[in-house]
Each structure stands twice: as C-alpha cells, then as structure tokens.
C-alpha cells in the first residue's frame, strides 16, 4: 500500500505504516500552507472562497487527512501499549533506514521479564552482543585457527523453551555446585 501523505521523510524515526483502510487510487496531496499575507484577508474573502469548488475540495482533503492522522495516532498508541521497548526501538531504526539491533537482551530495558530459559548458541550470542555494542563496527577480530569468525547477520533466537515439564517447581536453589 502506498500512502505518500503519511510517509515519514527518510531521516525520520517514526514508525512504519500499519495496515489501514483502502485509499483512493490518487492520494490527496498536502496543499501549500497559506502565507501570512494571504491569511490577512482570509476573513473577508471567506464567503467567496467557500463557493470556490477548488477550496471545497481542499477542505475535504484536509478533513480526510486529519482523520487519517487521528487513526494513525491511535495505532501508535496501541503499538506503544503492546510492544516492548526493544521492538519500538527496532521499528524506529528500521523506518529510519538503520539496521536493526541484534535481537539480544543485553540491557535490562531491552529484555522481557521472564522465568523461562531460552536456548542459544555461544558464537551467535556473542556476535550479537558485540554487534549491539558496536553496531557500526567494522570486521570482527582475526579468526582463530580453523574457526572462521562469522560475519553473517545474527540468527534470531528461538522462542523461549521451558526447561522443566509443566508443573515442575523451580529447581532447588541449594547445594548446586
């Protein structure tokens, strides 16, 4: 769906567009705001302009745009309520044309409070950790003999996997060496 009226400029960090209702084939475009000089005589010319079909069409478009903005605002509030901070940051980075941060919870603000363990591999986890600390960093260190330093994007982690069967109480936190 292409809605240039609602698209953020490339440097913006607003969110990507959520699905919305169908739009007209020819989307409305924003009119140039009136200049102060033109605005000065606005009252006097008001009645005449209302009768101008071009003005009426523009006013219709403004109303449609305001409705779209209101809808957009609701959507953003909804996202904020239901997405965790890391997802919001990822959305902002993606729409700003930046690469997403690796999906690793290395700062408390970025993790979900959970009691479940997530299975992970050390190489990818460390690669993701270092990348998140140095997102614009260059190549990694020299690879140890026989084991290449992998440069491909980090693999998203699997969803949390419970370690104990359902109903199993937490392990005793006692004499574990």
């Amino acid at each position, binding site marked *: 769906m292409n809605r240039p009226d609602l698209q953020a400029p490339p440097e913006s960090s607003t969110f990507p567009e959520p699905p919305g209702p169908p739009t007209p084939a020819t989307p409305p475009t924003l009119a140039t705001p009136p200049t102060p000089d033109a605005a000065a005589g606005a009252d006097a010319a008001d009645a005449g302009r209302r009768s101008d079909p071009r003005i009426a069409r523009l006013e219709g478009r403004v109303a449609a745009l305001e409705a779209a903005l209101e809808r957009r605002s609701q959507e953003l509030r909804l996202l904020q309520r239901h997405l965790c901070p890391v997802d919001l940051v990822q959305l902002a980075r993606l729409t700003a044309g930046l690469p997403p941060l690796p999906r690793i919870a290395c700062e408390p603000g970025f993790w979900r409070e959970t009691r479940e363990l997530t299975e992970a591999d050390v190489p990818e986890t460390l690669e993701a950790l270092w990348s998140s600390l140095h997102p614009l960093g260059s190549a990694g260190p020299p690879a140890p003999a026989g084991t290449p330093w992998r440069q491909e994007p980090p693999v998203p982690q699997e969803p949390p996997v419970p370690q104990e069967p359902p109903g199993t109480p937490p*392990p005793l936190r006692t004499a574990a060496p």
Partner: protein
Amino acid sequence: MSGPRITLVILAWNHWRLTERCLETLAATDLDGAEVVVVDNGSTDETPEGLARLPWVRVVRLPENVGFVRGNNAGIAAAAPGSDVVLLNNDLELTQRDWLRRLAACAHSAPDVGVVGCRLVLPDGRLLHAGTYIMPDTVWGQQVGSLERDVGQHGGTEEVSGIVFACAYIRREVLDAIGGLALEFASYFEDTDFCLRARQAGWKTLLCGEVTLIHDEHGSTRGDEGALMRLFQGSRDIFRRKWRRELAARYRHHLLWQSILNFPTGYAMSCRELLRALDDMGVRTVYRYVYGPKTVFPPVEPESSGDYRLNVIRARRAPRSPEISVVYGQGDVFARNRGRAKVGFTMLEVDGFPREWVAQANRMDEVWVPSEFNRRGFLESGLRRPIHVVPLGVDVRYFNPGITAYPNPGGEFVFLALFEWGERKEPSLLLQAFNDEFLAREPVRLVCKVINRDPGVRLKEEIRRLRLRAAGGKISYLFNLEFPHYQLGALYRSADAFVSVSRGEGWNMPLMEAMACGLPAIATDWGAHQEFVHAGNAYPLRVRKLVRARAKCPYYDGFRWADPDPEHLRFLLRHVYEHRDEARARGLAAAREMAANWTWETAAQKIIARLEAIKDMAAGIRSAKAAM
C-alpha cells in the same frame, strides 16, 4: 633428523569426483616425501583414467570391489617396506597443510603409541569424530563429540578406545605385530577391532586433536542405505561374538549410583561427568534417580539424557542388593540409599549442615564431600561417620585455553560473571563495585550471564534499584539464556577475566571451568572452591567477616557465609584491568593446574580408591566373622 617413512593409502571405489577432490587437497599439503598409493577397488567410472593422469600417485588396481577391509589391506601390502601407513578415505578434504607431520609426531611421541586418528568435521563444520567408544551392553560404536558445533573441543592429544579409519596413522611396528585389518569384517567395526587388537598387543590409540580434516561421510556408499545397514549389522554380529566378553571384562568395579541426571542442576551436571569418567575407568555403574515423588524434589525424571552412554547406564538393570551404593545429592535423600555398603556424597555452601542431613549421614557407612571446607562443616555439625574429601573436576577437553574465542571486536577488556540471581551469588555487590570503580569512557565492560527462575524476583526492578550510574562502568547482561554446556568454554575464552563474588560455594563449577580456560579469576576467599583457588592461580577476594546466611533456602538456616569486601573487590577489578600481563600469566597458571590436578578422571580415581577401601573393609569384616 628426518621423520619416519610414510605411505598414504587411499581406497577408492567409483565417485571419481570425490577421489579427485581428496587428491587435489592432499597435493596442496606438506607430504614430506610420503608415497601416495590409491587402491582402485574395481571402479567402473572414470576413476582409472583420472588416476592415470596423476604421475605422483601409485595405483593398485583391483579387478573388482573387494570391500573396505581387503581393499585397505591391499594398500598396506603395497606400502613401501618398513614404512608407517596412513589409511585415508577418498571422501576426505585435507585443508590443514601440516596434518601429516603432526600425525607422525603424535604417533612417535612415545614407544607405546600404535594408532593415531584426528578430529573429523562435516562439511557444515559440525564435529563428527574425536575418537570412538563402544559399550558391551549394546556393542554399538559411538563417536565422541559427535555432531557438536566445533568450538575447538578435543584439540589436544588424548588416549581413546578407538578411532574411525577414515584417517588412521598406523605405525609399522603395529602392522608387523598384528597384521592388517581383520578379514572377517567386510566393512564397519574393522577399525575398532584393529584398535582393540593393538591394545591387546600393548599399543595405545591416540586422538591427535591438532589435526582436523573434513569428512564428507559415506561419500562412497551414499544412496544405498539398505546395503550400508546390512554391512553394518553383519559386522556388528561378528564383532559382538569376538569382543563382548573382553569389553565387559574391563569393568573391575560395580556400583549403584543414586542421583539426578536429566535436569539442569549442578548435581545433575556433575553427575553426568562423574558417570562418564567412572565408566572410562572401569567402574560399571547402574544409575537410579534418587529424587521423585515423596522427596524434596518430586518431579519424575525425563528418560533421555541426550547422551548415548548415559542412556545406556540409565537403562541397566539394578541389582537387588547392590554391594555398594552412592547417593549423590542433598543430605536429606541419603536415607534412600539401597546398598549393603552405603555412601552419602553431598555438599553445601554454608559453614555447617542441617540437622536432618547430619542424622541421615550418620546412618551411612561413610560420607564424601568435595572439599575440606565441607568436611570441617560436617564434623562441626555432629557427623560421627568417616568422611572423605572426593573432589569434583573439569573436562579439559572442553575447557582449555585452546578453545575458540569470539572476542569483543571493540577492544574492550571484558570481565565475565555467570550466576543465578539470588542472595548467595551477591550480584548487587559485583554490579555496584564494577559500576563505581570504572567510568563509562574506559574501554572495559562487565558481561553478566544471569539466570532468574524465581517468580518472586523482578530482575529489572532489582537492577533499577541499584541506581547504577550511566557514567560508571558499563555492564551488559545475557539474560536467561541457556547454552549447551559444551559451548561454555567459548564463552569463557571470549572474556579477559572472570569474577565470582558469591557468599558461599559448594564447589563453583563455572569458576573452575573459567580457570581451566586460562582466565584470571577474582573469587571470594571463602568456600569449597578454596580447594583449587589460591593467590598463585587467581585473585582471592578478601572476606570482611562471616555473617548469618539469609536466603530463601531453608538449608542455610542457622549457618553463616562470607561477607566479601567491596573495597577489595574494586581494588582487584582495577588491578586485573591494569596489570593484564600479570593477570594473563596467572590465568595460564590456573589452566595448567586444572589440567594437571582437577580433571574428572582425578575425581574418579579418588572414588575408585574409596570403593576398593570399602570392599577391603567389608572383606575384613566377613573374614573376622568367619573366624569367630
């Protein structure tokens, strides 16, 4: 001094592309004058023509496919007189230039070395082979380290039961003594059979972990799984008849081991290692789960451990009246011991033991603990039975300075800590001290692998309450991630130093593993780990005093643990950061000590010594009764 004379024997049957790739990669390595013999096992594709184009290869052409064993024997027979022989599969890729020199050096490192294999990895990088073992219960050969990700494990030289003959360096003396591959096997089991025959004749089999080759397994037999299975089963039957009794005879001791195996707990992790080490050293253990319904840990244990050997041990039938049984777990399950001679093996993180544990321990024939720290605590708590220190250990094949590292490319100095969030591990002390001591602009970072399974703890809130300064030392968290245990060495090796500031430890496995990997470690100077930590191999953290142990764990009630000194912790963090050469040297000293003194084999030896002493005592009592 020139090296031994060597003949490389490559068996090929069709699949010329595989053979060609093998020979191309072989030619790019240092062969040091070794002769290359290719045995063409009756190929009907372009193999004969392809080989004819390679003047540096001597070809032994067989009129038909005579199988793996006879084909290789034809190559051995064609080898230069007096030369050592290296058997190679044609589906290998040789990517290590000095592979042959290293294998030869390993084979001639001692007079009793007869056969040497190497690490084999699959084309996707997973470890396929680091030696083999075979259990008499099933007579089904297993490859060590099979299909683990390659993080540099098994990178040293180690004695193994057997190797696969995809790559086998065989010294001439062994061939002269026992001949070639046994002709009763068409394919499969001939390699294990050869290693066993060599051992009978006094020759060891070694894995040379410095050499890694790529093995496109079953390249020559791919596409005919049925034929492969028939070959395998036929050879297995022959092998069983020939070796089962011999394999079973290697067990000199029998033991019932009641513990916990298939849960992610410290006892379970160490139980797995102990069972493997005991099996390696000739103790036939039968495992039974000691917890379950009506115990302090009621869950039923999952059946599979994900480890073939442990599954076999778990599936063995338990004797009705075992001579000796060891309960390895908390002291309040000692009463479930089923042996005629009863041993309770436990540990705790405070300076004494609960009354119920002591009461149950006093019904054992003897008690084992891993540390002098716990021995003292048990005696002071009223134990009246004999008590012995039986240490735990570390697997230096997976935890050593040669394990692959994934270091921080930003160049920061990295301190690593692993802990479960709770009172005992004292995380707030570490986070606060680190954050206070360092500045954010300094190139240093603390990485905490932290676990929280306590529903009563909101970790984000706990950390927020510490009010760590944004301008202070930088901290990153790996939160509730569970890594395969075999990969943890790579985590340690990717850091520069390790910190453990807990108030009390029953052993402290992560600390020992980190030290085995060569990390300089800061550790509280109180607890069981004092057994292996001292100022020559680590940085002991001063304790201000002992304080009452306050935690959710009821076992700690009435006992004390350490109060580590925050100022000294800051001093040590700064010291390690600023004296890196000294710290590195201390870490390497730790790695040497762990490898020399603290392996699971050492722990198993101590157990075996106790089993023998218990048997001697029992025999003495029986003979005294008979004399009365």
